[in-house]
């Protein structure tokens, strides 16, 4: 049996899955502060009680947490020092010397995680090929280390120039530190991110060091607490790329966990894609659309795999402004996030135009209709006025909404200044936020050279199913899925994620001048390390899958594309195959190739992964609150006029029975809006399937 545990900002979600029977039990408990471990233990106790299962019969626990992200955002990491090549101590502060907003005179750049007084330059130097120009002086290293430890440093990051080409100096410093001060955490750039470009590599290394002590402490306590309660199985940790790592791996490279929660949401797409495919549907391309209170996120799953990127920033100065954060070039699920959620505020800007977001009323004070003092109209207020939401059945009726306050806010700030009716203003808010999300999703899909139309959208998050229909229409999609179990979606994703590890090295060279022997030997070494890691995690050798790619570009270009490599030993004979793959990728993205331009490699990556967990998947469906699928009707506004539309109870919908849109389907956590010219049904797993014509 397997248990997925996801710690979110408000709730800790749990899913218990019996792979044999396909039985699944869901649990939810409040996240506890300051120590989230307590919440986990509460949840585990509860789910054990609900299911009648004991902890020692659980083989695998998969865990995801926002611990690392929060530590970086709130600057609550360890007292960290950074050792660099002398003369380059300020690399974190100098950054890339680029403003992220060219019109804002008052911008601020993210402050480095290590202050100047703890950034120490050491005399040593290597050239671009990793040849030693100035040897490392271990006596100096020891003096510096002693001084730092005396000053209370708990963690040390080491990032020397060209360490990706030759890690010897970093390793020597690491060995010395670990030997002399075993209680001080050490992060080496050649281990954390052995990639060219000193700022990005140092940024990732410093962040790894910054969060390492608290991650180690937390994971050790988690292991101990579960063991004490009888757990004897394996614990895996969800990383940002939708892959699992071991407790040991997570403690060495905690920055891998930065995006584990959102990754769970996308991996839930993999879960449902598999479930629906097994039932005979064609859902090879899925767009996961998650709209919550503050943001909307979209990501793609194609042929059972999430799209991965290595461009990620943590702790942005401005949440939606690229370049305003600390870069961490780890593998993460490629996701766009914009400021569009239920709490996003609508207003008329200086141009007299209606804008929605990116600022949000969040949950405090929340939308005007929450009656907690929110003055500004929000997306949720508009959805309520349009009849999409039920003021008596929000969160299953546990939170009554004030329609009068929503109308008042929209009237005052939007309708009256524009001289239009309240419902027209509300419809405008609804359309503008949908348009924002569709524009972002369209650009995201186009950047990959793909056509949005064949995608199936999977909508989740509190506001996702309310807006998904309209967004899907704007994108020209024809199918929408609102999965069951939406309340614990990330935790579901954990259960289908494979154990995997990714290793990289940078080697900048033209393909026609490549030293293939050296490439092969480094790849072999990385593959061996990956296989060892997986075998230690319990994966058998014949289940291991190896995927190799290289980031390449036309020599002289600055932007790399990821190119799959042929299997086996590489040599000059592989050139036609590699060139072909490169040109395929290049054409996909840019619609042309540049014949005769030499191609060069930058970074080589190898992903070694275990099998994707298989499970026969059933969902426990909560009891219906009424016998009739149709609870009644209510007026809803779909543009020109009010329509009296049927309101359905999701839990009471008989499987496979077709209902015509427009209709509104209510459930505890959300509301699904189905517009005209569509049919909707509940499949045997409890998912809502909407076909749009």
């Amino acid at each position: 049996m397997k248990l997925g545990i996801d710690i979110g900002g408000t709730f800790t979600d749990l899913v218990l899955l019996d792979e044999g029977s396909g039985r699944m039990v869901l649990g939810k408990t409040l996240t506890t502060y300051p120590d989230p471990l307590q919440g986990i233990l509460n949840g585990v106790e509860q789910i054990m009680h609900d299911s009648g299962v004991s902890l020692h019969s659980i083989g695998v626990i998969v865990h995801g947490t926002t611990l690392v992200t929060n530590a970086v955002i709130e600057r609550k990491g360890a007292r960290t020092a950074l050792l660099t090549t002398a003369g380059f101590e300020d690399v974190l502060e100098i950054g890339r010397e680029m403003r992220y907003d060219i019109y804002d005179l008052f911008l601020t750049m993210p402050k480095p995680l290590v202050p100047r007084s703890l950034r120490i330059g050491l005399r040593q130097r290597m050239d671009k090929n990793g040849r030693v120009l100035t040897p490392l002086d271990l006596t100096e290293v020891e003096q510096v280390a002693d001084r730092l430890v005396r000053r209370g440093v708990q963690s040390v990051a080491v990032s020397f120039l060209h360490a990706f080409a030759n890690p010897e100096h970093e390793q020597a410093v690491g060995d010395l530190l670990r030997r002399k001060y075993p209680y001080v955490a050490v992060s080496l750039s050649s281990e954390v991110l052995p990639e060219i470009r000193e700022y990005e590599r140092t940024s990732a290394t410093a962040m790894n060091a910054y969060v390492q002590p608290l991650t180690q402490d937390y994971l050790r306590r988690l292991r101990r607490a579960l063991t004490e309660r009888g757990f004897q199985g394996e614990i895996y940790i969800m990383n940002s790329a939708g892959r699992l790592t071991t407790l040991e791996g997570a403690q060495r490279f905690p920055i891998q966990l930065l995006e584990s929660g959102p990754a769970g949401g996308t991996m839930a797409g993999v879960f449902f894609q598999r479930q629906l495919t097994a039932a005979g549907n064609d859902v090879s391309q899925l767009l996961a659309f998650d709209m919550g209170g503050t943001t909307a996120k979209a990501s793609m799953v194609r042929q059972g795999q999430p799209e991965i990127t290595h461009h990620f920033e943590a702790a942005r100065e401005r949440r939606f402004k690229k370049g305003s954060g600390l870069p961490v070039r780890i593998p993460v699920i490629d996701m766009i996030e914009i400021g569009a959620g239920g709490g996003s505020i609508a207003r008329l800007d200086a141009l007299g135009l209606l804008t929605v977001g990116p600022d949000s009323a969040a949950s405090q004070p929340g939308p005007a209709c929450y009656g907690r003092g929110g003055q500004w109209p929000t997306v949720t207020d508009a959805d309520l006025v349009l009849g999409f939401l039920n003021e008596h059945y929000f969160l299953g009726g546990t939170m009554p909404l004030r329609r009068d306050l929503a109308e008042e806010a929209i009237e005052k700030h939007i309708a009256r200044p524009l001289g239009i009716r309240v419902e027209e203003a509300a419809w405008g808010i609804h359309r503008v936020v949908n348009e924002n999300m569709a524009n972002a999703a369209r650009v995201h899909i186009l950047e990959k050279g793909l056509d949005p139309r064949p995608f199936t959208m999977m909508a989740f998050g509190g506001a996702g199913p309310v807006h998904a229909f309209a967004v899907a229409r704007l994108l020209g999609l024809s199918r929408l899925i609102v999965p069951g179990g939406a309340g614990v979606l990330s935790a579901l994703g954990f259960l289908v994620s494979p154990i995997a590890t990714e290793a990289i090295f940078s080697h900048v060279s033209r393909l026609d001048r490549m030293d293939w022997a050296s490439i092969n030997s480094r790849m072999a070494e990385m593959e061996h390390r990956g296989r060892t890691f997986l075998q230690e995690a319990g994966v058998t050798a014949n289940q291991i899958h190896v995927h190799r790619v290289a980031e390449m570009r036309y020599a002289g270009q600055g932007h790399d594309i990821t190119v799959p490599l042929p299997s086996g030993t590489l040599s000059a004979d592989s050139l036609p195959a590699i060139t072909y793959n490169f040109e395929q990728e290049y054409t996909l993205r840019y619609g042309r190739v540049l014949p005769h331009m030499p191609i060069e490699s930058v970074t080589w990556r190898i992903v070694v992964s275990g099998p994707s967990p298989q499970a026969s998947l059933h969902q426990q469906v909560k009891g219906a609150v009424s016998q009739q699928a149709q609870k009644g009707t209510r007026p809803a506004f779909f543009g020109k006029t009010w329509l009296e539309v049927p309101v359905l109870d999701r839990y009471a919908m008989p499987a496979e029975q077709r209902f015509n849109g427009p209709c509104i389907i209510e459930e505890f956590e959300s509301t699904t809006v189905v517009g005209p010219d569509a049919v909707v049904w509940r499949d045997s797993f409890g998912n809502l399937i909407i076909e749009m014509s």
Partner: protein
Amino acid sequence: MTAITPTATSPTPRDFDAIELSILWSRLISIVDEAGTTLQRTAFSSVTRESADFAVVLMDTQGQSLAQSSVSVPSFLGVLPFLVKALLRDHFPPEQWQPGDVVITNDPWLCAGHKPDIGIVSPIFYGQTPEGHPRLIGFIGCIAHSPDIGGTLWGANARDFYEEGLYIPPMKLFDAGRRNETLFRLIQTNVRAPQQTLGDILAQVAANDQGIRSLLRLMDEYGLTEIDTLGAHIIAASEKAMRDAIRQAPDGTYHAEYEADGDGLNHPVRLKCALTIRGDEIWVDYTGTSPAHPLAINAVLNYVFAYTAYPIKCVFSPEVPNNEGSFRPIHVWAPEGCLLNAQKPAPLGARNVTGNLLYAPVMLALSQAVPERVQADCGAAVWVMVLSGRHDDGREFVEYLFLAGGYGGRKGLPGEPTLCYPTNVANVPVEVFENDAPVLVLEKKLIPGSGGAGQYPGGAGQRFAYQNIGQHPIHISNVTEKIRHQAYGLFGGKTGRRGRLYVLTPQGKRRFTPPKGHDTLLPGETLVMELPGGGGYGAPQATKRYRPATPSAHPQHPQHG
């Protein structure tokens, strides 16, 4: 429903309410951004790619700008509409455009003030005219910095316009879809790295095509037959917002004078600016500015407009999207033949040096009108250094380096270290630089205390030193600023530390290298650069006495007119 009065006529007038306008407007911006993404990712030129040194602009049938790509650099503000209007007026009247046409030019007086900036304009057709011809509904254009344009290597030292490489007057690069092979061949044989230069030109064409495809989809989706009416709404709304913002500022004529390095030796330049705010318009008059300079740092008027409008926009309405309307209330003038309105055959290559300074007198003048919304002077607009030579194995290389000084202090915020204004260029990572050129970087670190003191101190500059470790000399072209002068502080804030530039010989001796100009870095020699710090804002709090920053930087009293 509220409608904003259209100011242009169109074949099928259509009204837009505020909500439709919001949606269509954001879609137009999304369209030029998609095109910009295509260009940025496929370009070879490092400045186009890494520094977003490009712009994509969608224009109506009269060449009025409707939407400009959001990431583009300031130097291109207003430039493409200027170009298209000139094309329509002087080169290709509306009836001469056909579907599949693409026009190219690098005319500095029509484009962005020097030859490496290449403008590419494509007409957009949709539907038919009553006579059954394809209907011209607008233009899309982009401008980007080319990897090379021939002539002397880029820098400040060309003696005249003709030394600065190939001049391409407005010509059809594609004529109704057919490649102009003559022109392609001419470009190919006149530039270094022809593959890359032509590759970038084709990337520009592809970016326009991408924009056209997306626009046509939008036309279909919303049943539009033309974009002039929509454009008129957009322009009117932006113009109103800009005028409303200017109206808030007190009327008056505000004077500022700013001296800069010029050649960095004995030929400085003086920028004089009288900025008048009257009602909802701004006039900037540069009368009194130095005459054209013997170095190639002369600017043309449309480029001067871009760099004058930019700080004004940052101060008054940073959030209003860029289009025709946002610039209508701004008027810029400089006397013909002066540094800021250079005429043929003045050399223009490093005109950015001068354009990048204009914010300084403009901010100084604005500091008298809106003291809380300006920033103190920045250490460097950017220092640029071009290296060229050979690796030990004989391969040739050309490498551009960009370095930032300290950012100026602002009300409530200190200046950031190593950020440029108005330029915005990412640096070249040390490890990439060492892979691209036979150099060893000895140091790249902040210079503590180089920012001017103040209640909100200026940001620190940096020290950057690299050595030629190859066997061949490296040719260098230096373009620096504030070696002689310092970044001014405001309201009692102190000036930033000035910059320094010299070569260290293998024997450890310092030798001269020109602040603006060419030099040769011999094997074993080291070039040392110390970037200037930014100015402080407000008097340092420890000091009670009010002291003006520097005599030249002290804001003069406004003369109300």
